[in-house]
């Protein structure tokens, strides 16, 4: 049967729909918008009405790759539940970052990503915020050392403060120093979260997961303390970038 142009067009469009469905299925039904990502989180984590509070995007264009790689971090809330989620997009693929689980918190949430610790909560009345992060060095069930890093907050949204900290490679090796004796200049937040949670063994070492205590303090315009929250971060959040 010879088809006219209109019928050929309809046939092609049907074929396109089928092929797209196949591609979309093969890609694992990726979401392409912030709303789509939050819809996915809602369904996956049995939540409802997630409202985006902050979207942080970062794009990279690796050499020899035609399409760039985009990272999208989302802070969202539903009621007084806050979530932090990270997605990676490359051409048609959009996947939830597999190395970083979704973080969920009640009342207040803090999560670190590439040199910034984001804290979300009912902060509308706060004029400023300070986050004190305290990495700890434990040896044989005993707390050997700890250091508190106070970080000044920058308002990023009605309910979000951002706390920047310097990232960087350490110039020392574990052969040179015992983590306990690390020189003061190497004891940055990043350095402490790396060295104090590192475990050496014959032929190598690894970074174990550990909770890093944080205290978030909110202040009003007059400098009076409004609220104080005890929170925690995983050391991987601080050191991984």
């Amino acid at each position, binding site marked *: 049967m010879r088809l006219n142009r209109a019928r050929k067009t309809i046939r092609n469009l049907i074929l396109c729909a089928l*092929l*797209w469905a196949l591609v979309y299925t093969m890609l694992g039904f990726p979401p392409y918008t912030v709303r789509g990502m939050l819809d996915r989180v809602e369904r996956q984590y049995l939540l409802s009405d997630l409202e985006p509070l902050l979207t942080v995007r970062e794009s990279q264009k690796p050499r020899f790759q035609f399409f760039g790689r985009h990272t999208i971090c989302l802070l969202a809330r539903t009621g007084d539940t806050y979530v932090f989620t990270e997605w990676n997009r490359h051409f048609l693929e959009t996947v939830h970052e597999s190395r970083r689980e979704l973080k969920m918190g009640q009342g207040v949430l803090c999560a670190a990503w590439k040199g910034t610790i984001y804290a979300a909560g009912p902060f509308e009345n706060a004029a400023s915020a300070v986050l004190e992060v305290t990495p700890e060095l434990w040896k044989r069930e005993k707390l050997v050392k700890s250091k508190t890093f106070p970080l000044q907050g920058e308002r990023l949204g009605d309910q979000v403060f951002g706390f920047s900290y310097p990232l960087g490679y350490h110039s020392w090796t574990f052969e040179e120093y015992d983590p306990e004796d690390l020189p003061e200049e190497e004891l940055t937040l990043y350095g402490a979260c790396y060295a104090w949670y590192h475990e050496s063994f014959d032929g190598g070492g690894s970074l*174990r997961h550990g909770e890093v205590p944080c205290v978030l303090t909110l202040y009003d315009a007059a400098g009076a303390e409004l609220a104080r929250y005890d929170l925690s971060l995983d050391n991987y959040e601080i050191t991984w970038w």
Partner: protein
Amino acid sequence: MRDKFQTWVDAVCEQVRFWPDRKAIARELRVHYDDHVRDLLRLGRPRELAEERALEAMGNAQEVGWALDRVHKPWLGWLWEASRALVLLLAVLVVVTPREYTTLSTLRDRTRAELDWEEPPASAARVELEHGTLYVLPGEIREQNGHTAAEVHLWIQMRDPLAANGGVNTWFFSWRDDQGDLPRRTYDERTRTWTEGRCWDHGPPWSQGWTRFRQTMVLLLDRPPQWAELSYPPGGDWTVRVEWEAAS
């Protein structure tokens, strides 16, 4: 006369707005014209006369052009071209798309789990969620490594398959029983130990369909529970209670 015909063809094609078709139109008009010329030559007409008559028979160039333009609609022409390009592009994408996200075995397993779904018993507690329904039923109570393990069976039925690929995640569920809160069982890398004593963990069976999910949770307790409450999200937008005595 060749030039005269070409001029006529050009005049016809100028009227056709969908320019990609002009070449094919010109080719077809030439076939008609050549057939007519050949017929006249066969009837014994001199070539010059035959060509002249054949050209006259082709009609008014502008009118023919308008008629052809009505048939070769630009919007349909461009839509057709676009659909062809799109089919080609998508065919290439099918070939180059990585298959690790949804493999054939994933499709098969999800479909099987979807079809194998058994409705939860009527006695199961039920929670209506924004995107689905959750059913909770108390299960078996047994001894496990010096603890009492109380199973709780979950049926989760979503309204659409959007969550299918990531599955349903219940890691943030919070449980409490008649003795207090139960933390999730976690591994402490510092002490290299799993949470001991009262806690909860995931257990078998586990099945993930497209919209239907089954899961069992195990509450590790010191003694058989009378009841347990599940609340979610962490602060508890909703709470559902399971009672073992009532179930038995």
